[in-house]
């Protein structure tokens, strides 16, 4: 092992994990990398991307301020996470300095590289000229450097990132249920869905619909698109949560005699109800502006999505039950 790796066990451990992931899970790793490349490519060829980057290149001072703000917050958040990880990791007791600074800096440089690569791609396809690309890249890089220093101090001042774990805290019930039932299980996928669609995850997702809007769109339209996108993302998150929780819940309840139908019902009904409510409200709001299109296009799409979501949740629950043998005897259904 090279000396620099020995001196930085946290970095060498991460490097080895990446190498292992590539070596032994090559298909999955290549697919993930390809998806990232495709996503960057899609963003690069979207019609508004060129004009936006061009404008940012011309107005480099704005770019610089935006970069400083963004990288400052990112640095503060990364520093807090890295510090906690360093203190609780399996390598914490080793006689080696864990450079939180280096870890944060690597993350910031990686992020900067993605932004500059995106701009380079847009320049390569001819959507912006060379001078805009240069100004944009330099302003972003300078902003990243200032943001890195500023964010480091911001965290020290105690204005850093919010809590480490995202969790929904509920008040405990005063009394236990007199007749225990599976109904609390319905909260699991609903809560998991809220975790999936938390602001940190929703914000980057909003980038695509906002970029896809024509330049010069009115503010109220942009707000409506953002709100609708968030609502639809929460609906999609609930579907993903139902599928994922089905496997976890089945594994947990495998030693019990819960029947498959009861398990599937408990797992899906709240998710479906929430999705129906959200989509109905969304359709009602849309009908006030585009009544005809909401009824002819929106309603069938919503019904179709609900059917697919329900089918996915049921199939996932049944596969999960089968995998762990839950409800195999048919008792307790």
């Amino acid at each position, binding site marked *: 092992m090279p000396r620099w*790796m*020995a001196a930085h*066990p946290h970095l060498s*451990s991460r490097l*080895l994990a990446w190498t*292992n992931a590539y070596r032994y899970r090559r298909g999955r790793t290549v697919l993930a990398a390809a998806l990232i490349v495709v996503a960057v490519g899609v963003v690069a060829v979207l019609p508004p991307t060129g004009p936006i980057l061009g404008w940012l290149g011309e107005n480099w001072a704005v770019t610089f301020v935006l970069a400083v703000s963004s990288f400052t917050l990112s640095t503060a958040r990364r520093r807090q996470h890295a510090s906690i990880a360093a203190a*609780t990791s399996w390598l*914490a*007791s080793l006689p080696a300095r864990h450079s939180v600074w280096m870890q944060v800096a690597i993350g910031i440089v990686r992020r900067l590289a993605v932004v500059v690569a995106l701009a380079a791609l847009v320049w390569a396809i001819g959507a912006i000229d060379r001078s805009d690309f240069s100004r944009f890249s330099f302003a972003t890089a300078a902003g990243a450097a200032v943001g890195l220093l500023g964010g480091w101090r911001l965290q020290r001042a105690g204005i850093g990132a919010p809590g480490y774990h995202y969790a929904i805290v509920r008040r405990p019930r005063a009394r236990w249920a007199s007749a225990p039932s599976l109904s609390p299980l319905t909260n699991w996928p609903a809560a998991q869905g809220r975790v999936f669609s938390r602001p940190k995850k929703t914000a980057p997702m909003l980038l695509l619909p906002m970029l896809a809007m024509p330049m010069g769109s009115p503010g109220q339209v942009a707000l409506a698109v953002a709100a609708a996108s968030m609502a639809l993302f929460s609906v999609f998150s609930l579907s993903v949560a139902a599928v994922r929780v089905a496997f976890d819940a089945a594994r947990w309840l495998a030693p019990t005699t819960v029947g498959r139908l009861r398990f599937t019902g408990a797992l899906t009904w709240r998710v479906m109800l929430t999705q129906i409510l959200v989509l109905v409200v969304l359709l009602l709001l849309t009908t006030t502006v585009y009544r005809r299109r909401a009824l002819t296009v929106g309603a069938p799409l919503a019904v179709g999505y609900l059917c697919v979501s329900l089918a996915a949740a049921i199939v996932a629950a049944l596969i999960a039950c089968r995998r762990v043998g839950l409800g195999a005897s048919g008792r307790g259904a």
Partner: protein
Amino acid sequence: MSISLPDTATSDDAGSQVLLVRSLHAGYDKLVVLNGVDLEVSRGEWLALLGPNASGKTTLLHCIAGMLVPSAGSISICGHALRRQALAAKRALGFGCAPESLPDLLTGRQCLEIYAAAKGLAAIGGDVLALAEEFAFSGMLDGFVGSYSLGTKQKLAVLLALLGEPVLVVLDEAFNGLDPASALVLKRHLRSRVSAQRCGVLLATHALDVVERYSDRAALLLNGRIAREWSSEELAALRAVPGEGLEVALAAACAGS
């Protein structure tokens, strides 16, 4: 199968202090867990740390390993203050990390190599490799940690702790998940290291047979303090009592506090 009893170390023949904890206070946010803990471990001594669940045993061990910064008090390992001379103190420390914190995407061999490199070793020690062989772990060295069972991860955590001839070995529930044969191998290995004055051992455990048969001293952590200590003579006396000597004494100490 015979079990070798400890060569009990008395206060006269105890070697130099490898761990000294004084007035240690620690907690999480507003929750105070340790409220003035005093503790010593000498070279050639095995101290068992006892206490009910949530009494602060793991918190104390995390403070000693430098994973949690105490709010007050001092910790020194082999004369090096953990706060001011962290690297020197950690060089003398072998800490058994929690098995679930081991990285899933590395192999056992890679974990050992990283630890050995970070401790500045030219090679992994022969006795650690021999212990791996006795654990029947050698065949699993090239498997991913994520594919290991709890017991296998525990074996790896123990091997990592024993790498590099640490003068102070700190283990938290190290026998959890180990099969009886592997547990016996580990008990004997630790005992032989202690008896040869190679290290001092601090073991947080609920396994009273380990305390009775292998430890030199035992300490009960209760309400954030060391509430009761048993010397080697007291442990020997409890061993001589037929039945559940230490179990009864421990229950009485907990009830008394």
